[in-house]
């Protein structure tokens, strides 16, 4: 197991390196380069642009730039923002707690809803409730997330004044209750897709396990239904779900970009969108790398938990 983890971790690292190389190349291939905004600005003279280019190190060959950037990345200096001049890492650290709060709440909310729903759907297969739920999950997948957010805002904030329209805190209010009120709609929008997919996977996983001989044996031994469902069925249908949850880490992060922009949530997603609009390349690169890292390590995490949960799976 130890050597397997090491092998997979090295693979993940290599993949991340490759992704960074491709991303860096794409960034540098951009027409006009990072200083394109200034080219059409009459206030900025060509000499000034050359000077800027030199100061930012953009006059060096791209592979030298890449090597310098990579050294900085590993050494904890992710470059300075072209727009604010502040260290990228500092700007990210500022926004990270908001995004993590949002992702974690969505994750917890999705788990809290998906598990009971999945179990109920599996134990009441083809009942009207199960049909409504499968119907519902199709709708959830089909709904544009930002539209769902808009509808929630319209109903709960604008019409009924139950929840704040946007933001993370009322000014001057740092209480948990206030945060929770602001968090409810964004977490629901971000998590609803996972509720649908996790509960579906759990349902089909449980149905598969319910058909196994050992489940029939457990029932035949006279074990209480609850115990069979919890100990025998649920436990064994968790494995595919855990994989999906690992893969969903990056889905949640991508979703956060949209959710944060609906609800004015001061997180990384909005920072990244601002970096795009400002042509802030170091910040864009950082956002891309964080999301790629989440994706790659989410996969790794999924595989490892998979192995840990199922003793039958042994990697060499």
């Amino acid at each position: 197991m130890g050597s397997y983890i090491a092998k997979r971790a090295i693979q993940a690292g290599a993949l991340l390196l490759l992704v960074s190389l491709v991303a860096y190349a794409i960034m540098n291939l951009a027409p006009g380069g990072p200083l394109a905004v200034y080219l059409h600005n009459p206030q900025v003279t060509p000499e000034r642009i050359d000077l800027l280019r030199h100061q930012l190190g953009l006059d060096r060959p791209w592979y030298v730039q890449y090597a310098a950037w990579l050294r900085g990345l590993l050494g904890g200096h992710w470059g300075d923002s072209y727009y604010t001049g502040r260290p990228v890492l500092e700007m990210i650290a500022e926004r990270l707690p908001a995004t993590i709060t949002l992702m974690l709440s969505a994750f917890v909310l999705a788990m809290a809803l998906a598990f009971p729903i999945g179990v109920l759907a599996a134990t009441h297969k083809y009942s009207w409730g199960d049909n409504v739920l499968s119907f519902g999950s199709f709708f959830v997948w089909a709904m544009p997330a930002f539209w769902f957010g808009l509808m929630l805002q319209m109903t709960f904030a604008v019409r009924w004044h139950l929840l704040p329209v946007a933001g993370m805190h009322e000014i001057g209010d740092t209480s948990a209750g206030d945060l929770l009120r602001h968090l409810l709609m964004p977490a629901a929008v971000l998590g609803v897709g996972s509720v649908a997919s996790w509960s579906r996977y759990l349902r089909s996983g449980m149905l598969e396990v319910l058909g196994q001989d050992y489940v029939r044996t457990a029932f035949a031994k006279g074990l209480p239904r609850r115990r069979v469902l919890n100990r025998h069925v649920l436990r064994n249908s968790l494995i595919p779900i855990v994989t999906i949850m690992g893969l969903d880490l990056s889905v949640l992060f991508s979703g956060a970009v949209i959710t944060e922009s609906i609800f004015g949530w001061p997180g990384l997603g909005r920072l990244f969108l601002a970096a795009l609009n400002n042509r802030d390349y170091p910040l864009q690169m950082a956002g891309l790398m964080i999301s790629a890292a989440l994706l790659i390590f989410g996969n790794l995490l999924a595989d490892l938990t998979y192995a840990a949960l199922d003793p039958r799976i042994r990697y060499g």
Partner: protein
Amino acid sequence: MNSRALAPAGPVAAPSGQGLWSLAWARFRRHRMALVGLAVLALVAGSAVLAPAITPYSPTALDPDHSLAAPSRQHLLGTDDLGRDEFSRVVYGGRVSLLVGLTAMLVGSAIGVVLGSVAGYAGGWVDTLVMRLVDLMLSFPAIFLLLILINWTGGRAPVLMMIAYLGLFGWTGLARIVRAEYLTLRAREFVEEARAMGARAPRIIFRHILPNAMAPILVQAAFAVAGAILAEAALDFLGFGLPPDIPTWGNLLTQAEDYITNNPVLAVAPGIVITLTVVAVFFVGDALRDALDVRTR
């Protein structure tokens, strides 16, 4: 049954003598929701095609005196902030959104089928190369890379560029499925036979094997259309979609965001249309999977 001509020795024809497609249709018909879905799609696609004939106003005709009007007999879904008829804009928006969804699917499917089939048929280093490319593509968080690419050219994507980008990011799933299909099909007798008769690889790949791999491709393509429609709408919302003067469902929703207090219909209607269209595609795709007997993965 003309697929016989396409696949001379393939196992396409069903044993009963009934064609694969009529058998599939018989199974498809059993899914009531899929039939409803087909009807919805026919309605949406039909109104998009016939847009000029069924809309009472031009989608771009301004009427500032009647801006943000509530739904009425004159304006079924009311008017937007510039007095443009929302119903006409939703119908015309369907033209763009469906066109982008369908063509992006075609681009993605073409790439996926070609790469997947060549990888699956050739095997060896070709297969390794293509599959590593798929892995690399899947290691990129698609939305972040898409946003960066679109931002290259100033933050909005013209229609053709949008189609190309969505297609470029939409081929990996299909490539994997097609490759797996080819891995099993290439060992079948009819391929052996074709090879023995002197057919070259391209002919075997596209004329002999492809018709037999059509079922999973069709199912995947149906879901790809839905994915492309949703992706395009999300990009519109983030401000990196099609130019704002083009009425798309995503742009309509985004523009309605500022008027959810004055005229909520503007935000409700396009969202319902997107959701219903995509749900319809899902139901059709789901029934198609069952009807064509495609293994779920």
